[in-house]
């Protein structure tokens, strides 16, 4: 085994090297990082991208206390007690976040949600929630990332900028790799970007479609029509999409002629006008294309383990996010049970926020509500959300300090090799302690 531990023996005996470690910074979840650790500091992260390097090298265990109650240092046990009381005394408790922690911790969080008849929601509701809803109406034709690397000869990036948000996506999966059926790598692929902005991603492409802002829906339906051989009025197409019909026709010809087409899409599609209707049109386009060739589609997910959150919430409750259990069984309704809504409508009266920072990025009414109710925050870092929390736990960082499981954006589960131990407890440990106390307080097993 040429590529594993033995070959990278450190010279400095105080340096520990963890090979094949996993970077949880983004949804690529690269599992080929060699981390060098000295005195509980990561001094090197071989093969990591710019973002990954920053994630590993800037990591330091906060010397904050592991627990703060109302801003004052407290023991973890005291924090657990207070947290359990907040959750069990509330009438409409919500649990939110979950995308930047292990699936083991996510499972405990969902269990707590069940015990307290609460509402469980994840950051999916503010990023790819619309894709999730489109998935429910259209389904999805997809594949794992290695399949793209081995077969994808036409790659279309739609409303996403992996060059900057998923830096190794190009080299590991989508653009550069020499795959089983693409021996010449980049040369065997045609790459296309469709976006309103001329991004770094667009510059790396063979073709770029700078479409009219907020016209993704029209663009997608133009392609769907062309796939079916329907005549379109060039003037209308140009006016609606900002692109000449002839260019769309050329793209469709390439899509039909390729062997394995791939559309990778980002939040530029799901969070613009049309939202889940855009996602649905895209999923349907990919499906339609299978009448001519093989074609797949894949959302590019941001957070390290947001895909795990979708999976865990789904297998536990039947639904992927926005799940309410107040009647004693799970119900699903995005817009009703999603966190920005339960907060903004002043319904939630207590919260537990795990590895997420709604105080920094939610709407004003939602933030005001959160600030006015008792809530618990778990985060390795000091954030606006932890600062305003009734109980704030400083937790160990997953992937750097804790083992566990992370689901890559293509649902492939990958396990973590921690680099060194944190002085703080893991999310899993804190949540498990809270769960046990909640069980005692509510007489449940």
């Amino acid at each position: 085994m040429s590529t594993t531990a033995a070959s990278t023996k450190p010279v400095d005996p105080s340096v520990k090297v963890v090979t094949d470690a996993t970077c949880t910074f983004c949804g690529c979840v690269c599992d080929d990082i060699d981390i060098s650790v000295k005195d509980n500091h990561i001094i090197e992260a071989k093969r990591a991208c710019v973002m990954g390097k920053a994630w590993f090298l800037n990591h330091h265990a906060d010397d904050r206390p592991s627990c703060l109650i109302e801003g004052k240092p407290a023991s973890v046990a005291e924090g657990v007690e207070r947290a359990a009381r907040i959750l069990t005394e509330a009438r409409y408790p919500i649990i939110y976040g979950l995308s930047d922690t292990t699936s083991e911790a996510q499972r405990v969080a969902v269990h707590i949600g069940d015990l307290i008849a609460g509402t469980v929601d994840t950051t999916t509701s503010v990023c790819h929630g619309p894709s999730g809803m489109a998935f429910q109406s259209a389904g999805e034709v997809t594949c794992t990332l290695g399949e793209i690397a081995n077969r994808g000869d036409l790659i279309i990036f739609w409303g996403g900028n992996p060059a900057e948000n998923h830096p190794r996506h190009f080299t590991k999966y989508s653009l550069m790799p020499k795959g089983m059926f693409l021996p010449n790598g980049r040369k065997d692929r045609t790459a296309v970007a469709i976006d309103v902005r001329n991004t770094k991603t667009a510059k790396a492409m063979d073709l770029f479609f700078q479409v009219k802002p907020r016209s993704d829906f029209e663009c997608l339906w133009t392609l769907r029509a062309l796939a079916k051989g329907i005549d379109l009025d060039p003037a209308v197409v140009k006016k609606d999409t900002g692109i000449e019909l002839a260019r769309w026709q050329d793209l469709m010809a390439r899509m039909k002629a390729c062997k394995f087409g791939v559309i990778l899409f980002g939040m530029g599609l799901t969070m613009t006008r049309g939202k889940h209707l855009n996602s649905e049109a895209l999923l349907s386009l990919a499906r339609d294309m299978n009448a001519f060739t093989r074609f797949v589609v894949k959302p590019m997910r941001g957070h390290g383990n947001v895909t795990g959150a979708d999976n865990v919430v789904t297998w536990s409750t039947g639904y992927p996010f926005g799940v309410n259990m107040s009647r004693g069984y799970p119900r699903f309704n995005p817009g009703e049970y999603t966190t920005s809504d339960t907060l903004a409508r002043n319904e939630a009266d207590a919260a537990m926020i795990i590895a997420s920072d709604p105080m920094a990025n939610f709407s004003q009414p939602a933030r005001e509500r959160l600030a006015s109710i008792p809530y618990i925050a778990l985060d390795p870092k000091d954030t606006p959300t932890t600062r305003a929390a009734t109980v704030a736990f400083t937790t160990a960082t997953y992937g750097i300090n804790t083992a566990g499981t992370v689901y890559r954006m293509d649902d492939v589960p990958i396990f973590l090799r921690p680099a060194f131990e944190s002085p703080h407890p893991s999310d899993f440990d804190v949540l498990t302690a809270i769960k046990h106390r909640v069980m005692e307080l509510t007489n449940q097993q």
Partner: protein
Amino acid sequence: MYDPLHGVDGQVRDIWIRDGRIVDAPSDPAVRPDKVLDAAGLVVMPGGVDMHCHIAGPKVNAARKMRPEEKRKAEHIMRTSKTRSGTMGSTPSTFATGYKYAGMGYTTAFDAATPPLAARHVHEELEDTPCIDKGFFVLMGNNHYIMRSIQRKEPERLKTFIAWLLGAAKGYAPKLVNPGGVEVWKQLPSGNVHGLDENVEHYDVTPRQIIEATARGANELKLPHPVHIHANNLGMPGNWATTLETMKTLGDTRGHLTHIQFHSYGGGVGDQDTFNSKVVELAEYVNTHPNLTIDVGQVLFGKTTSMTGDGPLGYYLSNIYHTKWFSADVEMEAGCGIAPIEYRDKSLVHSLQWAIGLEWYLLVKDPWRVAMSTDHPNGGSFLAYPQIIQLLMDRTFREEAIKQVHPAVRERSTLAELTREYTLYEICIITRSGPAKILGLANKGHLGPGADADITIYMPNDDKRVMFEMPRFVIKDGRVIVEQGEIREVTTGKLLHVAPGYDTSIETDIAEWFEKYYSVRFRNYPVSDDYLHDHEIIGCG
């Protein structure tokens, strides 16, 4: 008590249990049990064993995600002081799945189609599937390393790889799904293979070679369940010829053909009007070849979800029924197709599928070689097993049911002529003792000393559906976990897996293969012991 493995057919007996196992009665008559459960007048059987269902992993979870519409109006699984809440529909949530199996008297179930790349996901879900013991089969029929080993004529390497892969995934048995066909599906528009001797490009192998080589390798490893085959051409009119060829390809090596109902069709391709049953011909072959075992994959009328590792099949079904469609190709290993489906009793095809399933139960002479399954949720829910039992045990009921379905069933299948009625003893075989034996589970499916104390106790009833729907008691590892349909105690259950020995020098080559073609590192591929909850390694040989 019914214990067919020991020839016990409804006799009155005592069962002694210690430390979760069935033991001999103490020789010293002074020894008194700590606890006595009086089952006088009741029917006692080993816990049910479902040898083929889809209950965990990426495919099942994708179906849960995709189908919220069937959950709201379905039964609500309420949280109780002991149990988790959940949802039903054709693919229940994990906790609900465990409770429902246990509530019906089933204590062991095997998920039938796991891509090994996703094995960790399956382990996580199975740990969240309470009350039952469980395991899973590992998809191998379109694995590139296997196809390359066949291409290079390296049977020894292939065998070693099977052992390595089962150990790496902590799985139970090799599973072939549309061998070769899924790879062609990945290569070509609407691609598939249509017979055993079609070529799979790039590796230049045929489905026949994949079946032959994998079956041989797995049998040489002496795996408890050597090979579990979902044959080519599932669901296609005229596919019985492919099924027969598949059986013949196995020669006299042990092999299991799964959901055989879906593979027993006569008629011309694309011509519904000629669709008919070929069970008589196929059952004749099974009856005369003791190396073969089957499970049925019974179809029941109603709405459900088709889910399979057979990628092209999902596409085919979603196109004919105009439904939403999920497909996920897994690099180097497997595919997946999901589509909603409704079986209608007014449909000629669906009625025949229903009849063909029943013919299989009634035409295989040796009940030890035919296991009950609906291929949950493909033919229907596992919760339909009591209904199937009633159809098998009660001829009058069956005749009434035939009157409700498409009349062509009378001409195009033999079902209406079959008078056989199953006895309780035979039902006990096809729902627990037989599947346990086919799976090579020495401690399941019987009530002799050494068996796991998984026991189901029923109230006798002329209405067999009622009898089997709600057992009076269900005992798991010696503890009463269900009384009259209510969960009394929640156990986690254990994972059943194999760990065949192999020559570890193969790992250098597999590692190179991974670094070249997989998107994960070789070292990060095998599932570590951390993922095992309670578990038991079932030995080979």
